[in-house]
């Protein structure tokens, strides 16, 4: 549970005025509300950031009319989407069609709960944190498959099937590259992984194999979130909008937000596992633990920017190129990399400050 000083006071106060059972339920609801707020704000902010960054990459200006520097643009878009009619296709599988967006958004939220924002701001610190993240992030694809299948639209179905192919392939690389780092840490618990990095971030500790693992993780993470250059799931020029062609209004917005939150989650995992999460560089602000959130968000945003850089630089891959990249390049390199990392740890060649 969250143990920030403010929340600790709230925690004590709740348990003093209510019976224990009620108080713990109220606390859970409060935490859920906080995380939903983070979810919405982060999603809207990332959409805006993406649009501005894309504009700068393309020598444009981007949205700058609604609010100062266009800060309220995505808010206005969200309100517009809320007021729009929810349409659907004839003979769509109504139940699955309505269920699909929630699959996507709930898995994104569940993944968010495991991520340590700072030493105390960490809703759910389980001992299999990394494993949980890998497992949860692959459930999201079920939502995409359901959405594509139930829409009764050939483009949606093709998009969904491509998503299935892509996620099943790249899941391996995501898992194995994180496993490479687990060889060093010896723990799947995210708080412990960060604890170990107090003697140097893992990308330094593991040097060569860690850098390779990081590169593989960023590539396969980009593929996992279905972003360009791996956005064959949406592929505007081929499939309309891919799996969410038939969605409108708020259901479309759920898919859209979840995509951006997934990007945030992948970057957050990378920041936590490779770059020390909320730890400050060389421990310069170790005496001020409140700055942990700042460092965490700074590292995450830098990696988010890297993913945006990918998106606005590289052209989309073909399906066969995508599979070649995964099965002929990333996977064998990854397997060799794990052995290399194991050797490094065995011979005690890791760098510790």
């Amino acid at each position, binding site marked *: 549970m969250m143990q920030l000083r403010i929340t600790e006071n709230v925690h004590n106060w709740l348990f003093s005025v209510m019976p224990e059972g009620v108080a713990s339920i109220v606390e859970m609801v409060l935490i859920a509300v906080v995380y939903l707020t983070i979810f919405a704000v982060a999603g809207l902010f990332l959409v805006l950031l993406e649009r501005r960054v894309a504009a700068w990459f393309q020598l444009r200006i981007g949205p700058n009319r609604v609010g100062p520097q266009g800060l309220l643009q995505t808010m206005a878009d969200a309100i517009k989407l809320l007021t729009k009619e929810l349409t659907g296709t004839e003979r769509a599988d109504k139940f699955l069609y309505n269920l699909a967006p929630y699959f996507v958004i709930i898995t994104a939220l569940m993944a968010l709960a495991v991520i340590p924002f700072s030493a105390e701001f960490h809703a759910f610190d389980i001992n299999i944190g990394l494993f949980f993240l890998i497992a949860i992030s692959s459930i999201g694809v079920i939502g995409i498959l359901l959405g594509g299948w139930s829409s009764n639209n050939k483009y949606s179905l093709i998009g969904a099937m491509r998503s299935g192919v892509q996620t099943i392939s790249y899941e391996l690389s995501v898992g194995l590259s994180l496993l490479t780092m687990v060889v060093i840490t010896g723990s799947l618990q995210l708080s412990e992984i960060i604890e170990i990095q107090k003697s140097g971030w893992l990308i330094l500790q593991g040097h060569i194999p860690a850098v390779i693992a990081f590169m593989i993780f960023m590539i396969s993470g980009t593929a996992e979130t279905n972003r360009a250059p791996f956005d064959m799931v949406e592929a505007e020029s081929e499939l309309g909008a891919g799996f969410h062609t038939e969605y409108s209004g708020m259901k479309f917005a759920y898919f859209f937000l979840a995509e951006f939150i997934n990007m945030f989650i992948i970057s957050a995992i990378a920041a936590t596992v490779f770059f020390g999460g909320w730890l400050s560089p060389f421990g310069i602000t170790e005496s001020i633990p409140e700055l942990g959130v700042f460092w965490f968000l700074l590292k995450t945003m830098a990696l988010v920017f890297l993913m945006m*850089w990918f998106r606005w630089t590289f052209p989309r891959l073909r399906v066969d190129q995508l599979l070649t990249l995964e099965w002929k390049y990333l996977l064998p390199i990854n397997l060799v990399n794990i052995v290399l990392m194991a050797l490094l740890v065995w011979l005690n060649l890791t760098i510790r400050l």
Partner: protein
Amino acid sequence: MSYFSEIYKGIKTLLTGMSVTGKYFVTSRKGAITQQYPDNRDTLKMFDRFRGEVIMPHNEENEHRCTGCQKCEIACPNGTIEIIWDRGIDEATGKKKKKIDQFIYHLSMCTMCGLCIDVCPHDAIKWGQNFENSVYDRSTLTRVLNKPGSTLMQGVED
């Protein structure tokens, strides 16, 4: 070994691409190509090759270069140009000579194909860069290009 050199080449080309877009990202503030249109209406200048409308330039003595040969009227695929002409006495030679009365241009029918301008033997008509052509009454889109009282420039036909 080509496996590893391919990986090396792949990473190198990807980084080259990223450096190009990265440079754009850094310099985008100076080099933004976006025109924030109604705000910069006073300073906005369209580029020279922009095809906004057909114009007929006149010089200071209110003279144009159109001889009324009607080549543009024939070249136009959709009847945008209509030339109403007349015969007048040429002052220099005293002979009867063709001259234009009204060069009528229907902007509403023009597809900006440029055939009239290509075919004009005396460069009498040119592309204008005006693009603000929305009006409430479409009859205002029918224009007479030669100014009232204008005459043919000397020496155009030589």
